[in-house]
């Protein structure tokens, strides 16, 4: 019996230690970025020599960065809108059927999550240019939407699979039309999942690099690529301030998504 106790202890110690290291490393870089952003010096030394908000103030004059951020927001909004509409309707159709074609389509629509996104970004560049379409914000939104749809599809499908089909039959047998049933029964029940998927799609688009790398040009520069270039060329402390701001916004959006859409529960599936 003693050896069992010792084994239990060693198991708990090892797993606890590894999990502790994991959670520490998950949060460590984010915390460091936030702390560094308050430095008063012009270098990224850590710990900071002194504290100030000067780099946050400097963001007010970073016009190129602001333009990139605004563009990113607009592109993400567009890509999210397309993803939510197409993802929800697609999920409604796929959830109805257990036939082979539905499962095949399901995995095809999910494939953007598994295929190297960079290869798709390049493919989209070739495609649009061979079609004679000039790169624009529209082509960027379309490219983003293709890789963001799976997020909405996944959360919505998971939620539809929990939906009792009897509720829809009940609504129909009580005389409700299909659209009325969708609006009054289905949508309220899957709404949170759709919202969570939309949130994920928005974040994925806002943070997308592999597709933007090929589809964004000087006129449609997006924030992650702009930041990437700054870090690549000269490490500007303004990047730390911009990162701090992004972390704060992400945190606020996540708390909102958790409140209104039960984000972490939706990610279970």
């Amino acid at each position, binding site marked *: 019996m003693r050896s*069992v106790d010792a084994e239990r202890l060693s198991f708990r110690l090892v797993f606890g230690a590894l999990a502790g290291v994991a959670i520490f490393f998950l949060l460590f870089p984010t915390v460091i970025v936030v702390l560094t952003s308050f430095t008063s010096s012009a270098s990224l030394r850590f710990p900071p020599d002194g504290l100030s908000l000067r780099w946050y103030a400097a963001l007010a004059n970073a016009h190129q960065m602001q333009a990139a951020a605004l563009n990113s927001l607009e592109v993400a909004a567009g890509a999210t809108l397309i993803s939510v509409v197409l993802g929800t309707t697609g999920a409604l159709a796929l959830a109805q059927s257990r036939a082979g074609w539905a499962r095949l389509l399901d995995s095809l629509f999910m494939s953007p999550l598994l295929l190297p996104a960079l290869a798709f970004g390049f493919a989209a560049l070739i*495609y649009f240019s061979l079609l004679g379409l000039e790169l624009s914000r529209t082509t960027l939104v379309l490219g983003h939407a*293709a890789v963001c*749809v799976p997020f909405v599809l996944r959360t919505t499908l998971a939620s539809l699979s929990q939906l009792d089909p009897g509720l829809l039959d009940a609504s129909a047998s009580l005389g409700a039309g*299909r659209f009325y049933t969708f609006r009054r029964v289905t949508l309220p029940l899957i709404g949170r999942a759709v919202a969570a998927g939309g949130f994920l799609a928005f974040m994925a688009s806002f943070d997308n690099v592999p597709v933007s790398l090929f589809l964004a040009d000087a006129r449609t520069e997006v*924030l992650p690529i702009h930041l990437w270039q700054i*870090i690549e060329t000269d490490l500007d402390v303004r990047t730390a301030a911009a990162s701090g701001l992004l972390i704060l916004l992400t945190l606020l959006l996540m708390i909102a998504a958790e409140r209104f859409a039960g984000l972490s529960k939706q990610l279970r599936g």
Partner: protein
Amino acid sequence: MTLADAANLATPIDHRGRRRPRDAEWRLVLPLGMFMILFFAAPLLVLLVVSLFGEPEMRTLGLAQYARFLGDRFTLGILLDTLVLGAEATLVCLVFGLPLAWVCSKAGPRLQPVLRFLVILPIMTSVVVRTFGWIVILGRQGILNKALLALGLVDDPLRLLFSETGVVIVLAQVQMPLMVLPLLTTLQRIDPNLWAASSALGAGSWRTFRRVILPLTLPGIAAGCMLVYAACTTAFVTQTLIGGARLVYMPLYIFQQATGANNWPFAAAMSVLLMIAVLVVVSLLNLLGRTRRGADA
């Protein structure tokens, strides 16, 4: 009669016959299907066609680009490095992610949402931001080197930035949530009585974990590894910022050839090869997850 009662009454009748009015809803898949054909499948098809051209001017068809890539030690090495990098980062993710998911699944009702939130937070934070944090940590003047020097563990600062070890560490951290979430889902589905039963029969914790829990977790492990592997092999930002200019992986090389050298057919052939390589690994993992699921059912 409540709505739920009505539903229960209605269910058996409707479920006998398969033809229900809402079967017509399959048409709702058309907008998504059209969109994905036009803006996802078609570009990939064009990519495949372009990769079959022999020269940047795209005149002759053939497998010249593939022969050139696979016949060159240098380029082939880049592909292998990329695939190995993905495997290493995935392994690190699994070694740390599995215990983390385990602790999450055992945590009490108060602690669990907090842990879950902490796991999701990093994946929502921009990859550029997270990678940037690592630059501050891993640099020659970075926190880690300062700490190691102060503790007297090393005499000279380590070169962590621009090293493969650095890229593996950062990739593992950046993609960790993709591993933990599917693992957590599978672990939570396991009947807690199994653990108790195994203990009651005299098996120790390690043995129970290895013989009971681990086999049941395989679908989650496979799903997590698939997602992490796919993400690591295409992680342009982390690879370039942490790896620097000397460590070249496929995404950067494709990008350089596509935009810098303007050699579309060669870059397309590389993209196709990267896709095939990743798909093969992902399919194998998928198969692993599926056979287990089949055996358990």
